[in-house]
């Protein structure tokens, strides 16, 4: 406050800077809406002001909720106190609670905690009452037992996250100096207070906010919310004609699926190391391992790699792809799919064991069961000779939350989901901000430069490489390839460690910079956090693609495609030469900026030809305008105007009223004086002159 402002603002004399200290790093929790509920946090339009209180323990809550004399309070929580019981108590006492600020530590807590629900996506998976009542609602296995469901609660005060940095020290110091009740005496005004702004525009549910988006005749039409949308990334080993949508005669496709996204309680923080990154990195490495084999000795079936976005929010990406396939809006359709192999959470496999989950209900059909058994045998033979073992859980258990469930909703397709947990998740930070590189034990020796760290092969990378090799070999045999070639299919640990570094440690590294075009470079940020979705301005402007999705697309293009000698102009126009009109159906051409040769600083770009494409991941509910749909995801995110926070000293209510009263008194007195003086003006100001004639 006073001291800090004078240091940080040299030479400026603004009164505002003498009163307020603005917080630099503010991460809010935002409001999301679906067909029936609104979740997240809301603040008043003019911010929520509360007297600071640093919570020491759960018993200390009594001061905030009952005995404190100066409500409303703004509670500062250490991350260990950010638990469901404390947050629920604060939620119930919300007339005295102005907001919560959570201080996130630099190291992960020792105890696992997940803000997600304990049964993720229970309403939009395949296990409904119709499919199998014994398996619905996680009756057999609770997948996320550490889940508190905090991310899906509604709070009517703002909740912000702060890092342990100078700002937080200022806040603690302010609390110590002014608000601390010393020796039983109550703290006196002026007290240290914080104001948090995170006013969300949308309210009630998705149908309401979409309706308010579209009202035509209001004076100031304002968008209040946006549907969650991004893009799926997909590629095939044998190029598919992407312009001719619908069923492709004679194509039999093995679908290899993984998930791209993740989330946490707060907005825009979603590292998702084990929840998402481990899976798609393994699949990317498998795609790379299969490049040579599928080109030299192409197997009879095609392999389609699909990276789905938005799976956290009721399977946005996979439901959209299934919908597109059903409506003949995709390069292949559901009849072309032979089987599915999905790579789930594979980063933590203790004792190097992987578990193969399959759906018992569809396996009651003997032909599906045969295919699944064959797939499992191929997985086991692919893992032989490697440092990892694969087995089935050994009892009848439904599939864990996975994109494959959406495909099963449409057709009984044989498929297997590879996970590192036999029953409940081993991930103790599922969809949490602590699910980061540290949790996966990605550690580098000290004193390495960023480029050296990029190339250093961590143990996690080695383990993930094994998984990728298993996946690649299985896909090859599943597609009908020859067993003799299996030994030559190996994932590259160098590639795996680089991708892990780029997504979990620092995305602005030299390798990523080579793989992307120059206009994307500015999007690579220093601090690695996975953006979990981006918002579509629903028809009014071209949808933006989030940087991580683009990164995955360029990576997939680089790992499965090849360089072609095409000029930059032709590359941008998806053609090989001036007259070429055919190539764009089968391939996609991407111009990347490449590396600078050793003796110059100019990068030499080149054109990458691959079958990697994007497909829209927007829930079909928004295309069909069914905003109360129970079948599809209806998640939208509210819009907001400002997100900021500031601290200042606040005076007692009595003092404020006194100041107002004195001001009103002065006003009335001056009015009265003026009236008296004007009515007695002739007496007061007589100067002996004749009064002027009445002019009116």
């Amino acid at each position, binding site marked *: 406050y006073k001291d800090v402002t004078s240091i940080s603002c040299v030479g400026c004399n603004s009164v505002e800077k003498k009163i307020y200290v603005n917080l630099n790093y503010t991460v809010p929790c935002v409001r999301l809406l679906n067909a029936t509920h609104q979740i997240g946090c809301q603040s008043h339009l003019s911010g929520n002001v509360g007297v600071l209180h640093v919570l020491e323990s759960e018993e200390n809550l009594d001061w905030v909720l009952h005995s404190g004399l100066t409500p409303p309070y703004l509670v500062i929580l250490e991350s260990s106190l950010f638990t469901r019981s404390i947050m629920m108590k604060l939620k119930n006492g919300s007339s005295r609670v102005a907001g919560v600020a959570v201080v996130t530590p630099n190291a992960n807590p020792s105890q696992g905690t997940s803000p997600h629900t304990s049964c993720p996506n229970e309403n939009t998976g395949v296990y409904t009452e119709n499919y199998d009542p014994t398996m619905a609602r996680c009756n057999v296995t609770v997948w996320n037992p550490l889940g508190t469901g905090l991310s899906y609660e509604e709070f009517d005060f703002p909740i912000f996250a702060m890092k342990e940095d100078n700002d937080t020290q200022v806040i603690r110091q302010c609390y110590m100096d002014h608000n601390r009740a010393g020796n039983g005496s109550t703290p006196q005004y002026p007290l240290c207070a914080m104001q948090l702004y995170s006013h969300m525009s*949308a*309210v009630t549910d998705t149908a309401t906010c979409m309706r*308010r988006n579209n*009202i035509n005749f*209001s*004076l100031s039409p304002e968008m*209040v919310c946006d549907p969650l949308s991004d893009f799926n990334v997909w590629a095939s080993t044998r190029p598919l004609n992407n312009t001719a949508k619908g069923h492709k005669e004679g194509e039999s496709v093995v679908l290899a699926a993984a998930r791209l996204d993740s989330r946490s309680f707060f907005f825009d923080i979603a590292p998702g190391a084990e929840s998402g990154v481990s899976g798609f990195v393994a699949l990317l490495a498998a795609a790379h391992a299969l490049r040579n084999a599928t080109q030299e000795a192409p197997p009879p079936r095609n392999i389609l790699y699909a990276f789905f976005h938005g799976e956290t929010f009721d399977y946005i990406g996979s439901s959209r792809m299934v919908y597109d396939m059903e409506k003949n809006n995709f390069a292949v359709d559901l009849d072309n799919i032979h089987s599915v192999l999905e790579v789930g959470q594979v980063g933590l496999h203790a004792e190097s064991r992987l578990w193969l989950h399959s759906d018992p209900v569809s396996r009651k059909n003997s032909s599906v069961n045969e295919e699944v058994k064959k797939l499992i045998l191929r997985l086991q033979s692919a893992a032989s000779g490697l440092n990892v073992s694969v087995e089935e859980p050994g009892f009848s258990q439904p599939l864990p939350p996975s994109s494959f469930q959406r495909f099963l909703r449409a057709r009984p397709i044989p498929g297997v989901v590879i996970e590192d947990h036999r029953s409940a998740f081993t991930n103790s930070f599922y969809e949490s901000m602590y699910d980061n590189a540290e949790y996966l034990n990605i550690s580098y020796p000290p004193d390495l430069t960023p480029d050296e760290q990029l190339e250093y092969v961590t143990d996690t990378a080695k383990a993930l490489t094994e998984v990728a090799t298993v996946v690649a070999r299985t896909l090859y045999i599943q597609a009908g390839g020859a067993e003799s070639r299996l030994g030559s299919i190996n994932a590259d640990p160098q590639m795996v460690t680089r991708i892990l570094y780029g997504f979990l440690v620092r995305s602005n590294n030299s390798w990523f910079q080579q793989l992307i075009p120059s206009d994307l470079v500015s999007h690579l940020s220093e601090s690695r956090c996975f953006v979990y979705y981006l918002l579509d301005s629903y028809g009014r402007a071209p949808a933006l693609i989030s940087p991580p999705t683009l990164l995955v697309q360029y990576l997939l293009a680089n790992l499965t495609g090849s360089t072609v000698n095409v000029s930059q102009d032709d590359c941008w126009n998806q053609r090989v030469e001036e007259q070429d009109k055919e190539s764009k159906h089968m391939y996609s051409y991407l111009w990347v900026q490449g590396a600078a040769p050793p003796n110059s600083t100019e990068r030499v770009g080149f054109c990458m030809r691959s079958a990697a494409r994007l497909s829209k991941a927007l829930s079909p509910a928004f295309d069909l305008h069914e905003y109360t749909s129970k079948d599809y995801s209806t998640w939208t995110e509210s819009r907001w105007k400002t997100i900021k926070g500031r601290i200042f000293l606040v005076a007692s209510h009595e003092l404020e009223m006194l100041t107002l009263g004195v001001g009103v008194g002065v006003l009335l007195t001056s009015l009265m004086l003026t009236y008296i003086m004007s009515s007695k003006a002739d007496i007061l100001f007589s100067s002996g002159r004749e009064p002027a004639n009445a002019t009116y």
Partner: protein
Amino acid sequence: MNLERVPNEEKLTLCRKYYLGGYAFLPFLWLVNVVWFFKEAFMKPVYTEQLQIKKYVKRSALGLLLWVTVLTTWITIFQRFRAEWGEVGDYLSFTIPLGIP
């Protein structure tokens, strides 16, 4: 305009114009009529046109009262129940508040 210097016939025409104009869904004209001609109608010594002016002022006051009642009732109901009306409430509104139902 200062009514002191206006002849009585003109006062009567003015009052009548305002009274008739108020029927075009313009209750403010009636309000102005009542406030402006109140002194003329009830507090000045009697003159020929005063009876008619009194009639117009009384009728304007009645019309004004009716409008005030109707508008107050509608505004109270709308402000109280707009949130519960959902779709209908949104379509009836010019500006919908952000962030609250």
